[in-house]
Structures are given as structure tokens and as C-alpha cells.
């Protein structure tokens, strides 16, 4: 019998803990438990049998800790340990089934391939890439599938991004049912910050078969947490609690909840809505036996579709509901020359700053569009999505017409994404729906098709109906569609607003779908657009707009938004409105204050005041002072004052950096003026800078980079954990004469040495300067560096000296 046929139809039981039972049978601390699959197969089989005889339906193969990283220190391969583990579970099932034949009909039994966490944090904040994680899981899945597992259990995981990699590996490399149980703390958070709603949204989107909790908590604590899951989850729910919270006695971690108490609590969890139950740490066959006795006859609560339209980031879910949402539109190059320039020069920070300011201004979701004809959009989309998610908590709307960019954006997204967009054309639906389905995206559907944008309400509704129907054929439910009723400017058709608003109303209230609009299109071609935009935005929200794609930095638009919410009663006690309004009342004063003190550029830089430096530079430029003269007569001498103060320990790192920020603002003013005149600012030469392989601390490197930039060097920043080969390649391809390397730990200075050796072997003509916490002059000499910089200013002096000698 298929596991899927029973799941959610009747109560099912998982087994309990494995680790403690192995320790009782002699597993030593530090020993790899999965090695017992080959060393002591009879013991593993026996434990499985005990659980099966206790009445459980699913035994988890002893494969939890197997992965390529852990197998490096064992005599066995991943394949060997997984295959042996799955076979032992199957053999135990066969033995129990045979023994029961004749007596009474055996209960359904399944062998689960058990997959745990890799134990490494994923990039961008961690060590291994999403693809590496995926490959690691893929190897396990392929082995388990070959060995004949009945289902895949991904358990005791606590990082939504790692979970996504595991689920994709499971779904793309097998057809087995996938069950995911996660380890939450008592506050309902994963160790990486995700909450119940956000990961549940992601997992439902990815099409797993059941979700739930295991480990971390005992059954009592799970009772408190379970309502969060039953509220949002439309899948069967699994609970595999520990036998209570861990207690440490004499250096031993033990679990104290006895079988009777455990089973009584599990019974309550089933009453609350769990339909699969088992145990984790500290639970034994006796616990499971009692659970089966007490709950075996229970009727489970039917699994119902909660019908929520939801997107999520790594740490929270955002629901489409009565209160409209703000989708920030600013990460988009259309009509923005600065943004285009940033994309071309791969200035990711520009994009991140756009994101941060929209988050600050109240956006709930950020649209991400990085499409330009001349760039590698799929690659840039992947980078933008992962880079933005490293620092911004909001869910993202992947906005592209490039299929490959779409797939990349959705794949590397951490959470349940939004996708912009599909339309009613056959070609578009065939291309977009399969990708949206695979990654569980909420898709923006444009009400247009081969016939263009229908001019009537009925015409747009017909396209909407077609989109709903076709999506259903791809297995995409209505709740994952958000309809764009489309906005055409009223400057070309005076009925355009009416048509859009009526369409909105009928989609939202008759078809029962959520809606979205690119609001500001309404005023295209008209003067003072924000007047029309705000009025239209309010009208649209009143006509059933669920989410407006707008500029959150536009005060009038946001005022309209907060006022609308207050007026329609979705802003509880007008709290949000009041908070925003009082914030606005405070701000003008602050702005006036910073303007009051006017100073020279030199002073501004020495004091580290960015705004004043910017203004002083503009003033000098207005007085027709040549930009090069400003740099050489004001900027650099002022920076030197601070640099000297720093070296003489009269000034300190924060001041050095504040001055650097001020100088940056001044450069910004100069660059803007130059580009207006069609000129570019010159560079003293290129420098490659990197934190070496294996090292992840890059603040020191970034400080050095900031300072060198201010002194006019063009910095090629390769980031952290950089492969020596990439450094060599960059140096050779771009003909670079100076490389700066940073390493923090003795363990990573080895990579620094290796990098220098490689550069010397392949490219004798570049100098290498090094720095970092553990380095000393002696150490630097030993690994063959040309220069040891004990602080950030040291690297400036060295680079300047090379430049003066014409060696850059």
C-alpha cells in the first residue's frame, strides 16, 4: 500500500528515538551512529523491530547523519551507509510481517529514508552554497530511492534555506512522498529565525506531503505551538516530540517524560489536529507502544484547505487579506539611468540600498526587476535575490520576462516567492505556470492575451477566467493567483480608470481572487502625477485592490495608504496611522538642524560629516573649481590629516571611517557633475582585494577597500572565502599589479600563503599586501608577502608609494 493513500486519511505512527537506544547498546561518544548499519546490522534491525512491534507504521532508517561531509571521516561512502540503512529498515518490516502472518493482519508498515541537517550554514551568510547543499542531499536521495525507501523524512532541520535545498533534491530526484518535520523553539522560531507560518507556506508551495514538528520540544511545549501550525497549514500534520525537555544530570542529557504521560499528551496533539505521531530524543518503543494503544482508534481531524494567499521571506509570512499590501516598485531599471548604470557596473550595493530604503518606508513585499538587454539577467537575478535576502526581511516578487531568470530567482529564493508575471497568452502560460507550480510561487496574472489588453470589463474578466482555468490544469490553485486588472493612463482614454476599477471589483468580490495593480501608470503623460496617483490609489483600494505596486518612498502615496486603512477599520485603533503621522511631524526639524552648520569641504571631511561634505563640494563645483583640483587640494589633504591622526593614535577607527564616508559623499557630487559633462573620473590603478579561502570575516577587508577607493584606486572586490584560482584569474585578465589579502585566523593564513604561492608561480608581476588579526611582519615575510599592513592606513601608504613609483 502507498504511504500517500493513508496519509491524512487515518492516524499513522512514526517510531521514536534511535540515538539513546544505540548508546545503551554501546555506541560511544564521537562514534558515527550510521556506521552501525555495517558494523552491527543486527542491533539496528532489532531496534526497528521493537518499534514495529510496538505498532508504529513508519520506521526511519538509520541514515539521519549520513552526508558527504560526515562520511569523509568514515570508512564508508554515503551510498553504502544509506543503502545499508534503508535495507535494514525493510528487512525489519519483512520480519515483523512474516511473524504476524497467521495471527492477525499486519498493520501497514513503511521504511523512511531519514535525512537530517548537513550541519553547515548556507551562503550568503554561511559556508556552503545552496547548490552544494542541494548536491549533498541529492546524493542521499538517489541512494535511498535506489535502495527502495517508501518515503523521505526530512527531520530536525532548522534552516528554511537548507530545508528548501533538501526538498528540491527529494522532489527532483525521486517520486517518493516527502515529509518535513522541523525543530522550533518554544517561541515558535527556527534557529535561523523562520516562524511556523513562513516555512509552512514555503513547504506547501514546494509540494511536500506532510509537515510538522520534531525534537527540540516535548509534547507539552508542542501543544502550545501546534495552533500556529493548524491555523495556516493545509497539509497533514506530524508531531514527533522529545520525551520532554532535556535535563542535564552529571553531565548526561536525559529526558524524563514517561510513556504514559507522553502518550496522554500526544493524544491531545491528535485531538488538536495532528494526524501523524511518533517520538524523537528520549522516546523508546515503550513510549510508542503506549501512544499506539491510546491513540490508535482515534479519528483524525479532516485536513482542510485554509485557502490563504500567502508569500513568505526566510522569517515571516505576508498574507493577502482585507488590509491592502504595499509592493515596493523601486528595484527596477525602467526609466532610471542611475539604476541602469548600477546594473551595468555590477554595483549590487546600489540595489540593496534601494531595497533597504523601501523596507524602511513601509513596503511589505519588494518587486525585483534587474532586466537590461546587455546583461546576464539570470545570473544577476540570482545574485540580487540572494544578496537582498541576506539583509532584508521582506518577501520578494521576482519580476522578469526571461524564463531562465525567473527559474533562477525562484530557485534561490528563501521562502515562498511572488512571481511577476504571466498573462493570458498561450505561450506565456505554457512557459510560466510550470515554473510557478514547481516553486509554489504566488503568480501575478495580467488580464491580457493574444488579442492585447481588452477594452471592456467583460473582456478582462474573460482573460482572468482563462488564466484561472489554465492554472488549475497545471495544479495551481486559485489562492496562488493574484490578478492584475491592468492600468492604462487616463490621458489616452477617459474611461480607463473606470474600466480598471470595475474589473478590480468583480475579480475580487465575484471571482474571489486577490488583485494587484501598477498604480502610477494611471497618470502617464499628465503633469503633477502624484495628485492623480494618490486619488486613484485610494479609489482602487476601495474597489478591492489587495496590493498596490507603488513607490513606498512617495509620501503622498503612503499617506493615502495609511489614511485608507484608518478609514476602513483595518488599522487597529489607528495605531499605524498615528505612528506614521507623529513621525512625520518630528522629521522636518531634524532636517533643518543638519542644514544649519555650513563648513568648508576640508572641515567636513576631517569632522566626518557626509552631508556637509556633499554640499561643500557642490558649492566648490558651482564656483567652477576644477574637480581634479578639489580632489587634490581639498579632499586628499583632508583625508591625510585624518590618516595621520589615526597613525599617531590621536584619531580612531570610527573617525577614519566617518571621514571616508564624507569623502565618498564628496566624490559622489564630483562624479555626478562629471557625468553630466560626459566625463569620467580617473583612477590611479586597479587593486584586487579579497578575504582568503576558508575565511569569512570581511570587515577588515571592507574598511581597507573604502579607504583605498577614497584615495582614487579602482577596487576589484572579490568578497570573502575567495578561491586562489579566482584571484589569479582576475589578476591576469585585468592586468592587476597589486593584490590585497585579508585573513583572520591561523587556519586561514594557510590559504593566504597558498594564494601568494599560486600568484608567484603564475604571474610574477604583481605585488601582494596582507593584513588581518593574526598576522605579524614576521608571519607576512614567511609566507612571501611584499607588504604587511598593520592597519588600514598602511595599505593606503603602500598603494600610494607604488603609484608614485609608477608600479601600478
Amino acid at each position, binding site marked *: 500500500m502507498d504511504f500517500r493513500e493513508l496519509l491524512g486519511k487515518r492516524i499513522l505512527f512514526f517510531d521514536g528515538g534511535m540515538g539513546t537506544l544505540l*548508546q545503551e547498546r554501546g555506541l*560511544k*561518544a*564521537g562514534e558515527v551512529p550510521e556506521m552501525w548499519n555495517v558494523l552491527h546490522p543486527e542491533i539496528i534491525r532489532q531496534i526497528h523491530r521493537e518499534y514495529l512491534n510496538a505498532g508504529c507504521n513508519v520506521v526511519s532508517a538509520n541514515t539521519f547523519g549520513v552526508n558527504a561531509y560526515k562520511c569523509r571521516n568514515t570508512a564508508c561512502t554515503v551510498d553504502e551507509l544509506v543503502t545499508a540503512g534503508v535495507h535494514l529498515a525493510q528487512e525489519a518490516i519483512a520480519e515483523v510481517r512474516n511473524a504476524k502472518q497467521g495471527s492477525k493482519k499486519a498493520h501497514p508498515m513503511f521504511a523512511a529514508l531519514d535525512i537530517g*541537517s548537513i*550541519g*553547515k*550554514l548556507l551562503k550568503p*551568510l*554561511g*559556508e556552503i552554497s545552496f547548490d552544494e547543499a542541494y548536491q549533498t542531499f541529492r546524493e542521499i536521495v538517489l541512494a535511498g530511492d535506489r535502495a527502495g525507501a517508501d518515503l523521505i523524512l526530512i527531520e*530536525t532541520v*532548522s*534552516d528554511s534555506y537548507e530545508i528548501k535545498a533538501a526538498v528540491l533534491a527529494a522532489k527532483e530526484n525521486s517520486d517518493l512522498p516527502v515529509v518535513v518535520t522541523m*525543530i522550533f523553539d518554544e517561541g515558535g*522560531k527556527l*534557529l*535561523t*529565525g523562520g516562524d511556523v507560518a513562513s516555512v509552512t507556506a514555503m513547504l506547501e508551495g514546494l509540494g511536500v506531503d506532510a509537515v510538522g514538528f520534531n*525534537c527540540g520540544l516535548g509534547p507539552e511545549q508542542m501543544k502550545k505551538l501546534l495552533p500556529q501550525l493548524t491555523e495556516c497549514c493545509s497539509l497533514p500534520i506530524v508531531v514527533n516530540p522529545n520525551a520532554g525537555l532535556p535535563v*542535564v544530570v*552529571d*553531565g*548526561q*542529557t536525559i529526558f524524563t517524560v514517561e510513556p504514559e504521560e507522553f502518550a496522554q499528551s500526544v493524544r491531545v496533539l491528535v485531538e488538536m489536529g495532528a494526524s501523524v505521531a511518533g517520538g524523537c530524543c528520549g522516546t523508546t518503543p515503550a513510549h510508542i507502544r503506549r501512544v499506539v494503544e491510546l491513540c490508535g482508534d482515534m479519528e483524525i481531524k479532516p485536513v482542510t484547505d485554509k485557502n490563504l494567499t500567502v508569500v513568505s521571506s526566510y522569517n515571516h509570512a505576508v498574507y493577502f487579506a482585507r488590509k491592502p499590501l504595499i509592493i515596493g516598485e523601486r528595484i527596477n531599471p525602467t526609466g532610471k539611468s542611475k539604476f541602469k548604470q548600477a546594473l551595468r557596473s555590477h554595483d549590487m*550595493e546600489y540595489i*540593496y*540600498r534601494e531595497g*533597504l530604503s523601501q523596507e524602511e518606508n513601509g513596503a511589505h513585499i519588494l518587486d525585483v526587476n534587474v532586466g537590461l538587454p546587455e546583461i546576464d539577467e539570470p545570473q544577476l537575478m540570482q545574485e540580487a535575490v540572494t544578496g537582498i535576502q*541576506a*539583509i*532584508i526581511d521582506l518577501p520578494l516578487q521576482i519580476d522578469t520576462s526571461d524564463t531562465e531568470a525567473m527559474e533562477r530567482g525562484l530557485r534561490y529564493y528563501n521562502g515562498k516567492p511572488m512571481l511577476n508575471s504571466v498573462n493570458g497568452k498561450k505561450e506565456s502560460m505554457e512557459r510560466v505556470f510550470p515554473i510557478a507550480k514547481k516553486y509554489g510561487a504566488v503568480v501575478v496574472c495580467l488580464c491580457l492575451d493574444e488579442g492585447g489588453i481588452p477594452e471592456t470589463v467583460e473582456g478582462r474578466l474573460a482573460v482572468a477566467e482563462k488564466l484561472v482555468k489554465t492554472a488549475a490544469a497545471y495544479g495551481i490553485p486559485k489562492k496562488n493567483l493574484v490578478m492584475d486588472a491592468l492600468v492604462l493612463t487616463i490621458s489616452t482614454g477617459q474611461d480607463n480608470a473606470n474600466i480598471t476599477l470595475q474589473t478590480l471589483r468583480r475579480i475580487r468580490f465575484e471571482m474571489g481572487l486577490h488583485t494587484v495593480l501598477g498604480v502610477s501608470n494611471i497618470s502617464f503623460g499628465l503633469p503633477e502625477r502624484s495628485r492623480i496617483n494618490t486619488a486613484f490609489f485610494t479609489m482602487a483600494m476601495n474597489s478591492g485592490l489587495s496590493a498596490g505596486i507603488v513607490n513606498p518612498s512617495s509620501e503622498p502615496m503612503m499617506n493615502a495608504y495609511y489614511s485608507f486603512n484608518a478609514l476602513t477599520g483595518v488599522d487597529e485603533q489607528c495605531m499605524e496611522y498615528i505612528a506614521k503621522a507623529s513621525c512625520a511631524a518630528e522629521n522636518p526639524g531634524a532636517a533643518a538642524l543638519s542644514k544649519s552648520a555650513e563648513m568648508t569641504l576640508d572641515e567636513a571631511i576631517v569632522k*566626518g560629516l557626509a552631508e556637509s561634505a556633499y554640499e561643500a563640494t557642490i558649492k566648490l563645483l558651482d564656483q567652477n573649481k576644477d574637480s581634479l583640483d578639489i580632489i587634490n587640494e581639498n579632499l586628499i589633504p583632508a583625508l591625510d590629516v585624518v590618516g595621520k591622526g589615526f597613525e599617531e*593614535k590621536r584619531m*580612531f*577607527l*570610527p*573617525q577614519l*571611517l*566617518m571621514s*571616508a*564616508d564624507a569623502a565618498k559623499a564628496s566624490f559622489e557630487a564630483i562624479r555626478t557633475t562629471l557625468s553630466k559633462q560626459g566625463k569620467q573620473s580617473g583612477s590611479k590603478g586597479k587593486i584586487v582585494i579579497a578575504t582568503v579561502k*576558508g*575565511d*569569512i*570575516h570581511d*570587515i577588515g577587508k*571592507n*574598511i581597507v577597500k*573604502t579607504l583605498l577607493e577614497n584615495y582614487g584606486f579602482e577596487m576589484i572586490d572579490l568578497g570573502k572565502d575567495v578561491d586562489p584560482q579566482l584571484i589569479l584569474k582576475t589578476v591576469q585578465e585585468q592586468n592587476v599589479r597589486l593584490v590585497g589579502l585579508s585573513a*583572520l*585566523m*591561523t*587556519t*586561514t593564513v594557510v*590559504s593566504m600563503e597558498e594564494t601568494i604561492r599560486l600568484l608567484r608561480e603564475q604571474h610574477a608581476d604583481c605585488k601582494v599586501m596582507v593584513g588581518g588579526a593574526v598576522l605579524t611582519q614576521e608571519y607576512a615575510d614567511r609566507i612571501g608577502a611584499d607588504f604587511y599592513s*598593520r592597519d588600514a592606513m598602511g595599505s593606503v601608504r603602500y598603494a600610494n608609494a607604488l603609484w608614485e613609483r609608477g608600479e601600478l
Partner: protein
Amino acid sequence: MEIRNDDIRERVNIREIYRYLGYGAGEPDDSVYSMIVEVLGQLSQTVQPRYVYRVYACSVSETGVTLSAEDRAVTFESRNLAANLAQCSRAALIAATLGIAADKLLQKYEILNMTKAAIAQACGAAYIEAYCDIVQEQICEQVSAEAGKLYLRPRFSPGYGDLPLHCQKVFFAELECTKRIGLTLTDSLLMYPTKSVTALIGLTANPLSCHIGRCKNCACTDCEFREV
């Protein structure tokens, strides 16, 4: 035993932040000071600190230390550690982290403002130290309740003196750091999330061996950040 962010914030030694920023015994001006206060505020609103520990019986020889529990024993070969744990009947292994939220915040500052990024590094370091201070006092209290009044020795971490960095692996195995608090170890023995501490803490009946000496006991006397 719950430790609130407010308690940690309260406990942060601001002089330590000055020292990490290179001020030595000096003090920053008002603008830098107000940035420090702002960043500390952000940290305490954002981070989710967690810790895990285990207490062992401790036996010290001249060349190393053996920690033993009912079913296990681990040995550290290190004369410096042995000196640190002299007279200690018990010792704890602890691991503590501010979690991934701290790293996200640091990244954010690097994009918005390098000065605050540097300050956030210093504040993060002082914050995790303050957290460890509270944690170790709680551990000390608890063990004292069972075993009679004990006093804390200074924390001693892998990489200090002659205690090699690869001892990190012992901590991770003994404490299940990854599963319990989300702390991971790279192949090059660095920890993610980055604002994290692993340490051995000696517990001794000798009240004179207080835990305040810290930095000044270190043999590296030309250190840029040495307490003065």
C-alpha cells in the same frame, strides 16, 4: 534561567567596545558615542542569543586537562589551559551565539554605513561577551547549589595560548552546538554565525582565583587591543 536582551544590554562593558575600536584607554567623541548607543539598541532588538553547556568533573595535570562525565571523558593537551584550570574540581564547556540575525545586521550596516559597520562589529563582540558573563554566572550558581560554593575562572577558548583551534571539534561534538543552538563550524574551524563564543570555564572552591583578570593574563603583550 531565561536571559533577556535588556539584561545583556545592561551588562555590556562599553569600555570594551572602545578598546575593540582602537581607543585603548581613551574615549570617543559624542557622535561616535551616540552611534555606539544606537547600534547596541539595534542589536538588543534584533538578536536571539542562545547557549548550551555541559558540566564535567575536572582533573588537571601539568600538561593538560581531562574532563569527565558519567559515560565519557575528553582530554585537552594544553599547559596554558592546565594553568588556567589549576585547583578546579569542575569545568564547563559552553557555546553561545547571537544567532544569524546579528550577521544580517552587520551586513546591513556594511551597505548603509561603514562606520556603523565597524562599530557594530565591536558592539557585537562586547554583546556576546556580556551574554557569556551572565551565562557563566548562572552555571556557577547552579553547580554551587549542588556541590558547595564554587568560583569562576576566566573563560578559556580554543586558540588561546597553546590550546589548538581544532579543539573546536570537541566542543561541537560534546555540546551538539549545531542542532541545539544553530552554531556551525567550517572546515577552517571558524564559527557561523560569527558572533559566537566557545569556551572552557573552570569552577574552583578557591575564592581568590577570580575571573576578572582576563586579557591581562595573556602572554601576547604587544597586542593592539590589550586592556590597559
